[in-house]
């Protein structure tokens, strides 16, 4: 039985136990959630560029963005057949809202409800990007005065609580790793709890790190790599990816007009172009012969930022990119969004069944414990049974232990362990550290070798106790790999 099937079975049992108790709806919701797309929340401190990144991922300027603090209400963006905005108040029934969309972002009319009385907004929008994942935009984590907030560490412990999101993107600005603000960045507990198995760090506003120099993204990548190895960061996110959010959003929604205006800049000689783009003020006010009004120039700046304009005009001048589509693709690539999407794919989407089952089991567990009824202890026991025995969960648990730095061993062995249990991606070639085009035979022999290696480690009396436990999990992973590969061959 697969994990999802076992989870469904547990839900069926729970539905029987709770029939007529007023929790039918709750259980139905959990069951539906198993069939829905993965829910990914975008979290981080205020002004870290959450809405901008969300727009880039949807490739549409849906979420309102602004230089001031903008998102105040938790907003869900999901795929659907119609355009609809639903308001969920803190108390009372949900109702549909009127909205307008003139230029870019959706403007919602709350209809007299105060923002603090709104629990969440639900925006249904037909969109290719939303078909794979439901995105949740969150308000920034509030003030500095907020005391050390509660955060659970254990992955799937029965005393864990259910969270609305299955996975989280944590946006962080470039801060010092010892900065309290930086550590606080992971404390958005409203929609999800950070955990190295379901969280990815995004070094946002990456173009600002090099103050808009053309090599700014290279700097950002270096910093992200360093951050990803920092002990404090490793315990909460799997990896860190740099993204220039504004550029990514603009690239995803680039217009022909904008490309035409950029071509005018690119047509300048190198020297005057450099002078023009030296400062934001100069770009707006100097060189009247450019043929752009100051309003058009300000609009360009707002869409691209100085870094985006410098980069795009340089790319256009080099002449390799002839169409707007080609330029958009190159800018998306350069903004780091492509990398982020790949990482999302290998770390979240390939593992979505595990992540969704995890959310469902957590919800079920908290229900069974907080609302006891005849038969509910059996439901709790079944959940615990699944959580403790299902191999994917064991993998995640070892991963979490390893990420917390509590699994000693030679660095090479620890690295191999992380790969084998799927810490860097669940595809066979990633687990076995082979190129993507490796032949089936090559994969099989690598898997057999890994199996033998981990069996030896698990049985070696010199292996530390915890590493031996982890090695047994790795053995199961290898066995699973081999079974998969053989099944594919047959």
């Amino acid at each position, binding site marked *: 039985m697969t994990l999802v099937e076992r989870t469904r079975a547990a839900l069926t049992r729970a539905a029987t136990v709770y029939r007529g108790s007023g929790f039918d709806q709750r259980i139905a919701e959990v069951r539906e959630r198993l069939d829905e797309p993965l829910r990914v929340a975008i979290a981080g401190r205020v002004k870290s560029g959450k809405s901008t990144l969300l727009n880039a991922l949807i490739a549409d300027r849906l979420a309102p963005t602004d*230089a001031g603090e903008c998102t105040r209400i938790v907003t869900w963006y999901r795929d659907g057949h119609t355009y609809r905005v639903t308001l969920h108040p803190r108390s009372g029934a949900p109702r549909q809202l009127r909205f307008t969309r003139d230029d870019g972002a959706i403007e919602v009319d709350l209809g007299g409800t105060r923002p603090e009385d709104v629990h969440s907004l639900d925006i249904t929008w037909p969109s290719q990007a939303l078909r794979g994942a439901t995105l949740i935009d969150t308000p920034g984590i509030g*003030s*500095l*005065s907020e005391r*050390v907030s*509660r*955060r*659970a*560490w*254990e992955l799937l*412990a*029965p*005393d864990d609580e259910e969270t609305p999101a299955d996975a989280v993107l944590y946006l962080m600005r*470039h*801060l*010092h790793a*010892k*900065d*309290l*603000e*930086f*550590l*606080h960045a992971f404390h958005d507990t409203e929609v999800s709890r950070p955990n190295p198995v379901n969280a990815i760090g995004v070094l946002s*506003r990456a173009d*600002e*790190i090099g*103050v*808009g120099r053309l090599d700014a993204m290279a*700097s*950002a990548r*270096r*910093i992200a790599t360093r951050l990803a190895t920092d*002990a404090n960061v490793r315990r909460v996110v799997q990896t860190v990816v740099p993204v220039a959010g504004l550029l990514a959003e603009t690239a995803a929604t680039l217009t022909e007009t904008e490309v035409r205006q950029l071509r005018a800049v690119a047509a300048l000689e190198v020297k005057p172009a450099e002078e023009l783009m*030296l*400062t*934001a*003020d100069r*770009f*707006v006010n100097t060189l009247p012969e450019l043929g752009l009004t100051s309003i058009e120039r*300000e609009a360009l700046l707002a869409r691209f*930022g*100085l870094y985006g304009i410098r980069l795009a005009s340089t790319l256009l001048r080099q002449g390799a990119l002839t169409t707007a589509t080609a330029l958009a693709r190159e800018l998306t690539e350069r903004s780091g969004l492509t990398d982020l999407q790949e990482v999302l794919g290998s770390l979240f989407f390939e593992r979505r069944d595990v992540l969704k089952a995890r959310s469902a089991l957590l919800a079920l567990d908290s229900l069974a414990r907080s609302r006891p009824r005849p038969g509910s202890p059996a439901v709790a*026991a079944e959940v*615990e*049974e699944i*959580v*403790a*025995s299902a191999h994917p969960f*064991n993998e995640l*648990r*070892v991963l979490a*232990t390893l990420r*917390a730095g*509590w*699994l*000693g061993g030679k660095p090479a062995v620890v690295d191999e362990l992380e790969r084998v249990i799927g810490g860097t991606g669940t595809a066979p070639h990633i687990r076995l550290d082979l190129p993507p085009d490796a032949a089936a035979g090559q994969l099989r022999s690598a898997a057999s070798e890994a199996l033998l290696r981990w069996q030896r480690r698990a049985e070696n009396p010199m292996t530390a106790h*915890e590493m031996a*436990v*982890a090695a047994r*999990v790795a053995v199961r992973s290898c066995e699973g790999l081999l079974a998969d590969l053989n099944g594919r061959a047959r």
Partner: protein
Amino acid sequence: MTQPATAPADGAARPATAPAGALVDLGIKACAAYGREDLAARLGKARGGLDDPAVHIVVAGEFKQGKSSLINALLGMAVCPVDDDVATAVPTFVRHGADKTATLVYDDNPPRREQVDFADLRRHVVESDQGSRVSRVDVTVPRKILAGGLVMVDTPGVGGLGSAHAAAGLAAISVADAVLFVTDAAQELTRSEVEFLRQAHELCPTVVCVLTKIDFYPAWRRIRDLNASHLRMVGDLPLMPVASPLRARAVRANDQALNTESGFPDVVKFVQERVGGGAATRRSADAAAEVVAVCDQLVSQFSGERDALADPAGAQRIVEDLNSAKRRVEELKTAAARWNVTLNDGTADLTADVDFDLRDRIRKITSEADDAIDEVDPADMWPEMEEWLRARISYDLLGNYTYLRRRATELSEQVATHFHEASGEAVGLLKVYNPTPLVEERPLEHRIELAKMTAGKQVMVALKSAYGGALMFTMLGSLMGVALGPIGIGIGVVMGHRGLKDEKKRQLERRRAQAKNAMRRYCDEISFVMGKDSRDTVRRVQRQLRDHYTGLAEELNRSTATALAGASDTAKRTQAERQKRLKDLDAELTRLRQLRERAAKLS
């Protein structure tokens, strides 16, 4: 404060103190001529203060706001290393020198200095993994803007403004002459930045906010206006928008227009005139006040003898008065003198109060931390807990230090008042029988109220020696090496389902107990070390005040004794000798009066 007429516009502050220097030299010559080496030594110190003007401008701000870039752009050369990622980790003191040099100062006792290659500076200044014990770096560069004694201090932004490092920065600010607070135009001032500014402004009256990176952020004007309204709440601090890259470019190309566009002329002007010039004026005034005080002592020394000479009949009475003045001055020197009693009692009170304040603060922190630990799992929160605790303690230590500083200044003022009252009486006796217009015109008010001027200064001298390296903050980091792991978290993998929950709970309790213990031990250690430190500081303040006023009493004593000897001698002189001596004395007094007048003008 008025600008001295000679203050040059180009910021070479040395000539600004030249008149005061000449004045002090004259005073020293006079003291030597009258055989008063003690007074000459005092003026020598004032001379030293003039020659070593050292105006410290501290550049502070959050991580990655462009502090080092600002200094580099200001100086027009790459001095402080700039990097996209790693930050400045050690304070860098940049001062004037004929050559480019770099010296590392190690945190040993006594501090060890090591000269390094200027080109290698980057390796030592930016943060690195291996913990070095370099406590600061001294750099000299041949830049004209620094020639007036200006010292630019680049501070580490590590850890953010809410951290222990920031508290150390504030401690450094408390002895600085001015602060340039750096924030970039990416966003308006954050709450922690405003809080930092508020505290900095309390500790140092001259604070300027510099808005950087205006070349990159199109919305910088909006940010500037928002910041201006925040700054109004802090106390109307000036705000200067700048673009460091433009300035660097302007310096390279020698482009005046570009320089103006970079916004730097304002910063340069501020640094040179308000800080450079202002400080020179202040130093001149201090030195001149010393000259005035010394002149007064010398005048009082001669006036007794002169009065006796001019009025032979009253000579006996004058001698008697002088005798009684001498007795009073001698009383000033004894332990029973009121100022001395005030000082001793006040010191005892101060020690007790500061200690209580510290204990109270630590007690509150401990209970707060206890509560926090009860709410969380220390395994999750420990790194953050550590930072939080460190920051919290630093801020309370800073609060304790500020309290000590305030109370010590109050004590110093009290002692000054009492000394002034007692000495004024004694000195008053010297002037009562002054029949000549010379002295009548200018009643001999003994300006022992150096008091007001030096009251705070004496305390600062003591504090500066104590907090020079902000020692207390550097030791904070070394104590907190409490490891909570390895914790048998893998147990979940082994034990399967049953009992997992209980085991987890048990382990959590154990971790909490462990964390609380560690935290308490740490707080104990801190209050122990800090208690000793603040007691030492108070003792140093006491010693400084005692030595200062004992020295003054000693000088007074000599003045009075010399006057007495002179007056007694008059009886033995012939009429001709008297006339001659009277003429000499009048000449001396006129010279002294002129010197005093010149000094009074400057002070």
